[in-house]
């Protein structure tokens, strides 16, 4: 996993609640067997017109938000399907972090697996940032994971909560499977207990 330590970059607004993973990437674009290359399909139905040309009204198509690396969005971001293609598309497009008042559970787990930082700030504050972005071209945000701090262009610093273990993994880019494999003995113990405790459990061959 790509480590996340700090990110300073242009912020883009996505001022909407309950953005679902079908909106982030429609199901018809899940048909790749690779992890890469999904950025071209990000927000596809919103981003492109039926004739395939970019929709000039779509926020991320505006020249001022080109090369944004931080997305600021409404509450319950990433609800719906468990498709990890949604974080893959956001990351492949160029986002390194998403700031929102809340995230859906599976989406936020999926983001953590690939080092795409989810920052939770209070809804009032997110709404203020959304207004500030609209009012100031080139609005840059700096995120420091070690300090758990978001700094806006006016120098205001917001602290955010972060699960300590998740933070540790993100900072160091740790591979979850590798970490789990350090507990091989515990897994083996559990497997033998399980066999005697619940011998009826099904096996497929």
């Amino acid at each position, binding site marked *: 996993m790509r480590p996340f330590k700090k990110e300073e970059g242009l912020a883009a607004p996505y001022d909407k609640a*309950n953005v*679902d993973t079908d*909106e982030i990437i429609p199901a*018809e674009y899940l048909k790749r067997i690779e992890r890469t290359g999904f950025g071209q399909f990000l927000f596809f139905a919103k981003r492109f017109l039926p004739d395939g040309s970019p929709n000039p009204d779509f926020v991320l198509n505006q020249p001022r938000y080109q090369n944004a690396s931080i997305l600021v969005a409404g509450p319950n971001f990433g609800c*719906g399907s468990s498709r*990890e293609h949604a974080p893959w598309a956001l990351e492949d497009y160029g986002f390194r972090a998403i700031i929102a008042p809340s995230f859906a559970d599976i989406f936020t787990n999926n983001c953590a697996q690939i080092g795409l930082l989810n920052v939770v700030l209070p809804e009032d504050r997110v709404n203020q940032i959304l207004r500030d972005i609209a009012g100031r071209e080139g609005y840059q945000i700096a995120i420091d994971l070690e300090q758990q701090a978001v700094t806006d262009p006016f120098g205001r610093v917001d602290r955010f909560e972060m699960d300590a273990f998740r933070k540790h993994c993100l900072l160091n880019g740790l591979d979850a499977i590798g970490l789990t494999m350090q507990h091989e003995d*515990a897994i083996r113990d559990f497997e033998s207990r399980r066999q005697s405790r*619940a011998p009826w459990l099904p096996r*497929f061959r």
Partner: protein
Amino acid sequence: MPRTIIDKIWDDHVVYSHEGQPDLLFVDLHLIHEITTAQAFEGLRLNGRKVRHPELTLATVDHNVPTTPRNVPVKDPIAKKQIETLEQNTRDFAIHFEGMLSPRQGIVHVIGPEMGASQPGMVIVCGDSHTSTHGAFGALAFGIGTSEVEHVLATQTLQQRRPKTLRIQVDGELPLGTTAKDLVLDIIRTIGVSGAVGHAIEYCGSTFRAMSMEGRMTVCNMSIEAGGRAGLVAPDDTTFAYMEGRQYAPKGQAWEQALDYWRSLATDEDAIFDKTVNINAADVVPFVTWGTNPGQSVEVTGRVPDPDEMPDEASKANAIRSLKYQDLQPGTPITSINVDKVFIGSCTNSRIEDLRLAASVVKGRKVNAHVQALVVPGSGQVKAAAEAEGLDRVFREAGFEWREAGCSMCLGMNPDVLGPGERCASTSNRNFEGRQGPGGRTHLVSPAMAAAAAIEGHFVDIRAWSKA
């Protein structure tokens, strides 16, 4: 200390626990399908890792498979490649696979239960958010992403934080003409689409005790639409009667031993939940969603709501956006909304009981001339059972298309999609923008309500209509 069923299952699956870290949980059953696994197998190969327990993994194809006759090759080259990739991966890693030509192929959340693979007290995961369906058996079942699929394949475990617990207490009898689908739509509109985020739900009360396994699966299935990590119903005699004799259910002495354990799972009397919500079954009505999230629903006899009457600015903004997409005017009676397509299927409502209910509504009637209606059974076994009862004839004679099993029009990954601007009465679970096809408009309803809409060409109050 008294514990909930959620805590009991959790505690029995902790492999490793350490202060400040997520628990390492053992997974009893890992269901896999063609859309969310290719990259996980690729990850295993790149790192030289094996599948730790292929015998605890069950694979099928459902999301992108065509529902037209199975003797025709899959036309979409990318879908074909995904299906072949899963087939090759299951062969390479010795995983049980119910392929497109198997009589047991079907939606992963339909075949797990019907094969007897989904059992009480299990931890079940799948790279699909509707994995919560298996909670109907008293299992802790939840959706995961592809990196977690790879983690489970490699280690048979998952790193998870213990969820908070939410009790949804429903008592009383569901009124005639309403179903488990209407109840779960009521629950979602009550607590909201993020009302259960961070929680696992236990559905408690006399309404669930009286409910069939199919109904319980419908409710648990849509737990995720309220943001719930998982949703379950404690196992009881209804559960055991459904399971007994199924292919992978325990037999003989093992069955008795399993029963003792399964009965011990029920939540202890004084167990404390983090949150409780009460719903009165008698208040449930046939619901139709008008918006673009499953919480935006209204009674069929009601009208499309006015955004100006929403309780807060955020819901007002959402409603305006939803109505624009859905091309609906505030104040429009729901029963005056015409539909172009009707879809009876999906992991929410494609089981035999759903098909029986829909068939009872359409029997002897004809699908409206302006409507295309299709029935997509949840599995090959559901299809065979329906055909043995003659339900396929009832649907065909009424003018419905009778299809092969798969996810189909629920998510528009196969050729069954809505065209831009088309409106659909759907028994599926999500009415998100573009979910059933770009520009398509979805209204979620019960199988009975969908069937009646197919006949009339618009929504009808099934309670009054069936008496007419």
